[in-house]
């Protein structure tokens, strides 16, 4: 990579930042002085709001840059940063939950955020330890944790009433300041973390060689790694506590450091925070200018995602070594069982779940089991079963076609695409009916799927690139969602419900429609059974065996995308079930493609119905969002996986 003339590039960015600040200042002064006609007030405003905001952008950007540079170094993962690892979302969930449940704890926001971010980090790292923190698996798990935490936060906000939507605006990354305290607090943490980084510089340089070499050179790699990750998590948590989720700054900063020609790894650790500071102030300046000119209040975090999504897409062709084929075989071993009895058992579980959902319920006088309400519950349960089976199918197909057990339908970006389509419809036509909403979601999902296919086609449908491009696309679209939700309009509130997975009112027509889609897609997957057996062996082996991999993958992506779109239309983005159902089927010993598929579909249906039943029962008479329970089940699953992984050893 040829370095840019770095001095001039940096100078140009600085010039733009300064220019933006000056223009914003002029516009602000204009607005304030015509309204109040008071120059003294304007002066106060500049000192207590405008300057702190600029300072906050610089400090927070630097903190994110440093945090990411540390994470990328220690995990040897070019895509690691607080947002992609789910740290920011974890911090956000912790703060939202604390605000609602335990307001007293919010006297120490950084501590609460740290608890959440650390929990997310532990979850992600523990779940991927057996794959030796393979970069792609870490990112996929991070994305799942992030989606789940976001759905959880949305659910908590929804459950506590609409006056809490402000929390979501903050979650979108808002740099508005009303004093110097938060900036100074974050600056102090940044300085402390900077000192910690300086102490760790030399051991970190050793770590670049690889674990075994660093250990041989007398380094306690485990301790060092833990300490550095803790430092990075602390920085990320503190930043999230002050300004909410601001993604991609961390991704871009180390990259820019490399682009402007900082070669040494130590140099990059210094350059990344500087680049982060400049980038965030640039983005925030642009957001403020947009606000002044159009009156739109876009959260800065949404704007950075808007920049960051394309950035990852641009990087896709250059990304290499995200998987480590040579270290996996021993770790990924799972035994097999005869398919018949296992499938029969799963079917029994599904039938029992259906029976439970149809008959058991809570009334004003406590629990009761009777078939009186079964009739009008049938449509709901049928819809959930069909949608759950679709999610299980999509998950199996995606995991097999990418050969990655950590992949899930979400990586296709289709779910978020449907959400973006819904957002577009709601913004354009606030009174849109259910039909129009469904049409918008469908259009969004289809457009996203084709964008993904068109993009990946140029790179031969490699599994890694498909995953990365899907993640980038998803992040890009979810920033659109966040922006609309953050407007606080009725459309935003509706979207918030959708994000948290609140079920659209089920009807017979929806249930039969979804079941018809399920019936139509299943034979298509079955026709691809042999391809689904071969593709997990990877690109090289599949091509050597004579499989037309590009065409086959494209076809399977379409099938999985259609299944995801159909389920998203009816039950919202069910983050975890598409990941868990195939896993569950596989760990029950179903290894052959068709048995695996059937098992995942049964498990997906049962899990979805169970999650919905729990969501209706736990806080009776209030109905909690389905997504929250899918999230709880998912988080629990990852935790159990961690426990078993720890016992089994790496």
């Amino acid at each position: 990579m040829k370095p840019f003339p770095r001095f001039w590039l940096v100078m140009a960015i600085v010039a733009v930042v300064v220019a933006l600040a000056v223009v914003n200042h002029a516009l602000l002064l204009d607005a304030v002085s015509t309204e109040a006609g008071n120059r003294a007030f304007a002066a106060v405003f500049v000192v207590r709001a405008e300057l702190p905001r600029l300072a906050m952008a610089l400090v927070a950007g630097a903190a994110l840059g440093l945090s990411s540079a540390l994470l990328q170094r220690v995990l040897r993962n070019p895509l690691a940063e607080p947002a992609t690892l789910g740290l920011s979302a974890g911090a956000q969930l912790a703060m939202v939950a604390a605000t609602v449940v335990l307001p007293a704890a919010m006297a120490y926001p950084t501590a609460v955020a740290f608890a959440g971010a650390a929990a997310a980090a532990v979850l992600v790292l523990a779940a991927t330890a057996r794959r030796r923190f393979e970069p792609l698996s870490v990112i996929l798990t991070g994305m799942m944790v992030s989606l789940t935490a976001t759905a959880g936060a949305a659910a908590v906000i929804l459950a506590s009433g609409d006056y809490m939507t402000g929390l979501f605006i903050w979650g979108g990354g808002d740099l508005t300041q009303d004093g110097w305290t938060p900036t100074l607090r974050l600056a102090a943490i940044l300085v402390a973390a900077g000192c910690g980084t300086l102490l760790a510089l030399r051991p970190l340089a050793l770590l670049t060689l690889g674990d075994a070499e660093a250990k041989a050179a007398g380094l306690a790699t485990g301790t060092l790694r833990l300490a550095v990750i803790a430092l990075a998590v602390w920085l990320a948590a503190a930043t999230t506590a002050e300004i909410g989720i601001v993604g991609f700054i961390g991704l871009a900063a180390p990259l820019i450091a490399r682009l402007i020609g900082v070669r040494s790894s130590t140099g990059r650790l210094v350059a990344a925070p500087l680049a982060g500071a400049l980038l965030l102030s640039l983005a925030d300046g642009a957001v403020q200018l947009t606000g002044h000119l159009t009156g739109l209040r876009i959260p800065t975090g949404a704007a950075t995602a808007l920049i960051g999504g394309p950035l990852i897409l641009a990087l896709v062709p250059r990304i290499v070594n995200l998987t480590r084929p040579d270290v996996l075989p021993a770790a990924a071993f799972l035994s097999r069982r005869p398919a018949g009895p296992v499938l029969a058992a799963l079917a029994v579980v599904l039938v029992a779940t259906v029976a439970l959902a149809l008959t058991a319920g809570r009334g004003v006088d406590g629990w009761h089991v009777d078939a009186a309400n079964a009739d009008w519950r049938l449509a709901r349960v049928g819809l959930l079963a069909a949608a759950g089976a679709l999610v299980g199918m999509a998950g199996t197909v995606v995991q097999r076609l990418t050969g990655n057990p950590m992949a899930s339908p979400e990586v296709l970006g289709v779910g978020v695409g449907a959400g973006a389509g819904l957002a577009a419809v709601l913004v354009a036509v606030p009174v849109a009916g259910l039909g129009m909403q469904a049409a918008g979601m469908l259009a969004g999902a289809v457009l996203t799927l084709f964008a993904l296919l068109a993009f990946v086609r140029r790179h031969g449908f490699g599994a890694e690139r498909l995953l990365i491009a899907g993640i980038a696309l998803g992040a890009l679209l979810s920033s659109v969602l966040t922006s609309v939700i953050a407007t606080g309009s009725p459309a935003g509130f509706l979207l918030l419900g959708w994000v948290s997975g609140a079920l659209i009112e089920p009807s017979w027509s929806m249930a039969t429609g979804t079941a018809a889609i399920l019936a139509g897609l299943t034979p298509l997957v079955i026709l691809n059974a042999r391809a689904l057996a071969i593709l997990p062996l990877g690109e090289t082996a599949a091509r050597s065996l004579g499989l037309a991999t590009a065409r086959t993958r494209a076809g399977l992506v379409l099938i999985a995308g259609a299944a995801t779109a159909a389920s998203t239309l009816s039950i919202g983005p069910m983050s975890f079930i598409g990941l868990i159902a195939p896993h569950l089927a596989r760990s029950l010993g179903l290894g052959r493609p068709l048995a695996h598929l059937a098992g995942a579909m049964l498990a997906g249906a049962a899990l979805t119905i169970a999650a919905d039943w729990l969501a209706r029962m736990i806080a009776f008479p209030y109905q909690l969002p389905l997504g929250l329970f899918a999230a709880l089940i998912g988080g629990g699953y990852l935790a159990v996986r961690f426990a078993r992984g720890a016992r089994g050893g790496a």
Partner: protein
Amino acid sequence: MPADPGQPGSAGDALHERRSGVDDNGPDFALDGAGFSAGGRPILRRLSLRLAAGRLHALVGPNGSGKSTFLKLLARQLLPDAGAIRLGDRPLPDFGSRAFAREVAFMPQFTPATDGMTVKELVALGRFAWHGALGRSSPRDRAAVEAAIERCDLVAFARRSVDELSGGERQRAWIAMMLAQESRWLLLDEATSALDVGHQADILDLIAALTRERGVGVVAVLHDINMAARVADEILALDGGNLVFRGDPADVMRPEVLKPLFGPRVDVLPAEGPHPALAYLR
């Protein structure tokens, strides 16, 4: 990547052609100025040569000499950015995916994880090139799978999971899969370098036997020059992306050939009676 023709008749036609015995040894590989570079650096400089069917070619050379790239070009895993490669009289890009797999099987250096697949299931995947995604598995397919398992001494392991096997057994399972593929060329990229000397010799002897029994052409990247001299019909030495030597094993086992390749400390103990010539480090 060209589309698979996918005509129902194509598998049967090829089978028929092969059974008729007209073209017993299959088509030759022909490279016509084929080169490959990555990031502006040439990995393989324009090579023009022919590889005859039915012979075992060993590819040797120091690290970074372009051996693996050469093999991947033959396997169509990489496309040359200069020149062309033909198999018989057809350029490689003209083959459909399955048609090509019926001619050429490729075994990578690292075999992927198989997620609990049994040996028999893995070997049966080799038949994909013949029956395709939808075609029924014919008695002939099943016979080919059985024969491949037997030939590789895996009958006792047929129902075991591939992941449970030892390194040597697993390697044999993958070779059995290539056998079941019944292609006329086998390309092996250091397929034995993770094994101990005894298992290496077993596998290579098996491959050498296959070239004799079935007229299968083999191109194998081998690290161990002594092992290469032991089994190969012909040795090709690459250095810095150039073909620097090509000839009989006996001709390569000379200090003046090996020293430029592997450094001045390499020397050769000449053949004496039953002992073959041996390369060693001084």
